């Protein structure tokens, strides 16, 4: 089964994204912790795109598709903004973040710790970020 949503690039759309994921992530193999963490990882990527790639321009949009396949869930996030490849981003040291009194940088750590695989590709102005979580069936 496939599930899709399009959200516009403003941070208020994040609540809409969570509602969609709440309705979509109803698979019996998901615990409450899984549901929250998957929602969080997808939201972190979308929030990054909204803020950094699209400068919160409500005319721009992001598409999310959730695909269920045996043993895994795939979250495919596509946009046409400035490419932001998660894989190029080095995980910052937490003590350093604290020392620098920084507010940013934690989202990517969460995505990398929660998801099992992250794929990124950029073709003809369209960026696709695929977040994959494996489950034992």
């Amino acid at each position, binding site marked *: 089964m496939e599930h899709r949503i399009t959200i516009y690039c403003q*941070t208020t759309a*994040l609540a809409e994204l969570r509602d969609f994921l709440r309705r979509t992530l109803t698979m019996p193999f998901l615990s409450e912790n899984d549901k929250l963490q998957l929602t969080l990882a997808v939201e972190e990527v979308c929030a990054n795109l909204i803020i950094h790639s699209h400068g919160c321009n409500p005319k721009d949009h992001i598409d999310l598709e959730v695909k269920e396949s045996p043993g895994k869930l795939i979250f495919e996030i596509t946009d046409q903004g400035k490419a932001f490849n998660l894989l190029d981003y080095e995980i910052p040291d937490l003590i350093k973040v604290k020392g620098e009194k920084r507010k*940013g940088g934690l989202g990517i*750590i969460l995505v990398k710790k929660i998801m099992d695989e992250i794929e990124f590709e950029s073709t003809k102005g369209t960026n696709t970020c695929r977040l994959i979580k494996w489950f034992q069936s």
Partner: protein
Amino acid sequence: MLNIKGLEENGYHVLILQGEVDASNSVLLDESIQKLIADGNKAILIDGQGLEYISSAGLGVFMSYLEDFQEKNIDFRIFGLSEKVFEVFKILGLNQLMAIFPDKQTALSD
């Protein structure tokens, strides 16, 4: 949707968080903590019993003040996080950097 209420209890300034903290509203949390520091409060308690969700935007707010709390000798504590919200703090290792208590009683008696 996030609601923040403030009150005084047992010498602590308590911030009661209700709802979800994300990139659209983390500025409210930021302003509340900033004001408490600016007003010279030395004991801040976060009541997280009604906190249903927090993204990195909210966690980043806490992180960005930890150094100030240390420098200004501010006693900063959090209590009442649900298991799934606490799990997110643990993923980042924030439970090692912040004083997090299961309930108000333990937070106030330790």
